């Protein structure tokens, strides 16, 4: 069930500007904080009383999240929209300034090019 938890990380961080800023600044710290404080809350409308205890990240998942490793996340079957959106939030601005519009998105495609013509890892849980 940890694929759910990876998606939950991407979903909850992408929609929160403060968490997103911390994820860019210090991903290791933010992932640790998320696992302690945010992941255990129900995904929507959760608080510190209503806790879910049944999910956790594997070591590989944690490592992929800490490293902003979108190739690994793609290969684990993280949802493509969440994976793309959060990485755009983290990197698009600096790539545009350096190499122009869509340069980050094209680099992402390039780094995933070994999947061309193959069945992608399923995003289905």
């Amino acid at each position: 069930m940890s694929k759910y938890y990876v998606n939950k990380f991407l979903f909850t961080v992408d929609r929160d500007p403060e968490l997103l800023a911390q994820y860019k600044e210090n991903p290791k710290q933010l992932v640790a904080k998320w696992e302690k404080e945010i992941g255990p809350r129900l995904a929507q409308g959760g608080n510190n009383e209503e806790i879910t205890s049944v999910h956790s990240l594997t070591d590989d998942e944690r490592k992929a999240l800490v490293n902003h490793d979108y190739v690994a996340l793609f290969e684990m079957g993280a949802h493509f929209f969440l994976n793309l959106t959060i990485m755009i939030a983290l990197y698009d601005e600096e790539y545009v300034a350096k190499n122009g519009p869509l340069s980050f998105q094209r680099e992402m495609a390039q780094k995933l090019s070994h999947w061309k013509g193959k069945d992608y890892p399923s995003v289905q849980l």
Partner: protein
Amino acid sequence: MARLTAVLATTHHPFYLKATTAPPEERMPQADEWKAKVEAYRETLTAAEPDILLMVGSDHFHQFFYDNYPTFLIGKQSKYDATFYNEEREFGIPKYVLDGDEDFSGFMLQGLMDRGFDFSVSHELKIDHSIICPIITTRPDADLPVVPIYTNIFAPPLPSPKRFYDLGRAIREIIDAYPTDKKVAAVGSGHLSLELGGPRQFHETGPDPEFDRNAIKWLSEGDIETILEQVTMESMTQSGNATHGFLDLILMLGIAGPEKAAYVDNLDLFHTMEMYMTWYPEGDPR
């Protein structure tokens, strides 16, 4: 009974507003052509003089998530907030507050249940870009009440293409049965071939231009038989990992019925084929 004066099926490209309002030095070369095509398309809705918009779209993990993702959902509210923080951030889409039509939403919900479509209903639905993009392109004043219908094209397993078409047929029956003298237009958005977060994303064309050409032909001819023969979950995946947005265009054909479209246009844009299609169930008012 309500009059269904137009059915619009279109792709939704979240960067339309940003691309066409950028300062001249930052404008992409196709911005003017894109704007002209969208404005021509807008006229097809304006000509139908709608009083209410029935909108079809899909939440992109903005409000709904894997903890509880509805297969089919209708909003039943007098007003709807629209545009999430991360859509403003990524696409530059502004926030809106749209009027709703609770009575029509309630009639639609009951009618769907009566026809075997057990919908979820939300009284706190916030609209995302799948509905706001077509508002921006086809009704930028955002001055009409909406009835929003959401489908799952996003978190598999998804309902079948036939189920989407049948849902469209049911929605049509319910619109036709709604006791009002108001004019309804149905406006739905989805995708042709599309890749997001994968190796075929953001190339010069969409990931499967042949599918795009065929899909436009099938839809514009009202050829649901060929669509149901040719389009499967697997075939859509082969055409691009986010191609399943085509299911909402099949739904719109279901609302229109197996008829030829009155207006068909497209734009081969960077990384997607944009499509603009309109049916006039009562005849072309233009």
